């Protein structure tokens, strides 16, 4: 306790002013976030499950969060400026706390213990660092600001704090420690638990009589129990992905360091991973169909009862199962390609070049190529040679054209007597006293429709010239003969025949 007080004294003495401000700022930010969180929880309480424990409330809001628009969620993160900054020493510190809690069955840590754990982590990550106790104070502050450590004693500055790792910190540490690898046993156990739970849920669905029973006995367990089990499988799948990446790195490192001596180890690594993936895929294929069948029957019962919420929950779980199965097939296919590639590499490159002499000589060749160039040759004939059957050549017939008489027999056509009528019309206009070409033309074209008028005008001028003696001024004036046509006018004088 003495040490505890001393530590607290240092903390207060050094950080009293800024610490208070930072604490206020952090608590404001955290307050806003928690306020939204609580609103979500209370909405969930009102709409979904009703009065429940904190644990259930938390999970329900998580389920609701999944239904939210991802854009809104991302915008929220961006607006709040959410960020994480973790140095190696911070990660070691969190991991050390997690492991200590695991070993000693601790649910929280007093401040002395936190400082002690930090000093151990600091010694590992940054050996010989100055003033580790002061650094511990800063590290605790940093972790609290980033919501990795939560102070759970609610005593403020009155006495030394009691801390616990948050869910965020636990998730980060677990992902780094990576002890959740998918094995045939763990997968079979988890899918077995899913099948067993779904069978019970189907029975509950058949027995449910009202909305409350549906929500409490079917929808909630579907979202939480089944959701957690499937999330567990997915988490382990991610673990196996990471494990695969490790295997790739290991094979590469083994080849770099031991080359031909590493052949057996590389082959063993490849075969082990292949066998694991094959087994996992078999379990997934076998159990997923049974899970989908159970989900379908729950969906059918929900549809009959008109419980849209339960139908949706079952459908969501079905989609997760589909994703899980697709993961198995996809990873097996990808690994299969990689397996073939590495085996080919081991056979064609490593075994055939045990001293890596080829690489060295090729390197030299490439370096010297600009001064001693040579060029590989390839075929470049895209045309196809068509091999035809050999035939005896025959005489070609002369080019001929059929004879044909070019004379055509006369045919009967309709007489074109329009001009005769036109001459009568011109003569009549002249007789009526028209004194210029425009007047005659106007009179004559009035008898024709618009399409013919243009052609008729020329004939009228010719007939006027034939029937009388027109006088043409220089320059000839233009005169309109209808709405669209104008002609160069003549004056008509003298006798008219």
């Amino acid at each position, binding site marked *: 306790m003495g040490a505890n007080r001393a530590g607290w004294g240092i903390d207060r003495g050094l950080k009293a002013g800024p610490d208070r401000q930072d604490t206020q700022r952090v608590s404001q930010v955290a307050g806003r976030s928690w306020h939204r969180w609580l609103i979500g929880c209370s909405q969930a309480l009102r709409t979904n499950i009703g009065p429940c424990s904190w644990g259930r409330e938390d999970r329900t809001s998580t389920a609701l969060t999944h239904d939210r628009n991802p854009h809104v969620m991302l915008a929220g993160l961006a607006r709040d400026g959410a960020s994480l900054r973790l140095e190696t020493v911070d990660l070691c510190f969190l991991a050390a706390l997690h492991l200590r809690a695991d070993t000693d069955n601790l649910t929280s840590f007093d401040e002395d213990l936190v400082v002690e754990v930090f000093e151990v982590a600091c010694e590992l990550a940054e050996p010989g660092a100055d003033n580790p106790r002061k650094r511990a104070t800063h590290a605790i502050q940093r972790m609290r600001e980033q919501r990795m450590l939560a102070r759970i004693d609610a005593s403020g500055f009155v006495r030394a704090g009691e801390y616990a790792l948050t869910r965020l910190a636990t998730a980060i540490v677990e992902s780094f420690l990576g002890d959740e690898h998918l094995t045939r046993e763990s997968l079979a156990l988890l899918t077995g638990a899913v099948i067993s739970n779904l069978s019970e849920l189907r029975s509950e669905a058949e027995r449910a009589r009202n909305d409350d029973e549906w929500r409490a006995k079917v929808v909630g367990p579907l979202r939480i129990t089944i959701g957690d089990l499937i999330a567990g499988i997915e988490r382990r799948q991610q673990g196996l992905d990471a494990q695969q990446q490790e295997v*790739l*790195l290991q*094979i*590469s490192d083994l*080849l*770099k360091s031991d*080359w031909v001596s590493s052949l057996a180890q590389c082959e063993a690594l490849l075969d082990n991973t292949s066998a694991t993936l094959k087994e996992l895929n078999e379990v997934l294929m076998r159990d997923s169909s049974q899970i989908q069948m159970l989900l379908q029957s729950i969906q059918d019962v929900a549809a009959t009862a008109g419980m849209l919420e339960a139908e949706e929950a079952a459908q969501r779980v079905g989609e997760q199962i589909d994703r899980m199965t697709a993961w198995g097939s996809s990873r097996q296919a990808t690994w299969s*390609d*990689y397996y073939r*590639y*590495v085996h*080919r*590499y081991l056979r*064609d*490159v490593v075994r*055939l*070049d045990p001293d*890596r*002499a*080829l*690489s060295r*000589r*090729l*390197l*030299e*060749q*490439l*370096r010297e*190529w*600009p001064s001693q*160039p*040579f*060029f*590989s*040759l*390839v*075929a*470049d*004939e*895209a*045309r*196809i*040679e068509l091999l035809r059957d050999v035939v005896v050549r025959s005489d070609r017939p002369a080019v001929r054209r059929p004879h044909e008489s070019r004379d055509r027999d006369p045919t009967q056509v309709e007489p074109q007597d329009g001009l005769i009528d036109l001459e009568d019309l011109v003569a009549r206009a002249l007789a009526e006293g028209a004194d210029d070409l425009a007047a005659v033309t106007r009179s004559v074209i009035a008898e024709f429709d618009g399409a013919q008028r243009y052609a008729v005008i020329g004939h009228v001028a010719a007939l006027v010239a034939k029937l009388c003696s027109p006088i043409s001024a220089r320059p000839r004036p233009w005169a309109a003969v209808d709405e669209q046509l104008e002609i160069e006018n003549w004056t008509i004088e003298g006798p008219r025949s």
Partner: protein
Amino acid sequence: MTTRYTSLADVIGDPVFPDIDLALRRGCHIDREDGDWYQFLTDAQDYLEQLYRRYGCELVVQSDGYFFLLPTGKQFSVRRLSAGEMLVGQALALQYLDPSTVQSGGLVTQEQLLVRLVNLISDEDLANALNPKKKHTSERVIQETIRTKVASAIHRLAGMGFIDRVDQDRMRLRAPLLRFADPVRGLGDRTQALERLIATGQIASVAASGEPEDDDEDEVEA
């Protein structure tokens, strides 16, 4: 010996023959990753060797597991790879042999290739080798020449089955790349190995065929 076919007519009658024939004539290399095509060539090898020999060509099969057609007479057009294709091909062959590539399953990026090339040959020498007709007066021109010619060479090597383009940046290396290592396969003198390859018509030297012509249409403006 052939397994599936009893005559050349059977071979030519196979539905895959026209595509494989055209690919080989275009200078394509066919390896185990080509699946059915490789199996066809393996099964029909005896008949096809006779067929192509009549055109003055050799159907070459290498122990690394790939086929290609090599014109040895005058009846068939032959193309000499450009300087860019040769440099990029050799650098990719080095990558193919490198155990670091195993981690990515035989995939390399264009950037990794450029880094390797530039580490082995200086920028200016590389630019001059890629485009000897151009004066490389500034760093910008040098870098543009390198990038453009390398990209062009990658495109052509992909067309000849040396690599597969996975996307704009990444490529998968294939066994035919080891053709670029042919002169250094044995432990003997490299010059003698080159002379042997020139004699068999697999390689051409500058002395025999003049300066390399680069018919790329991607000249860099100064």
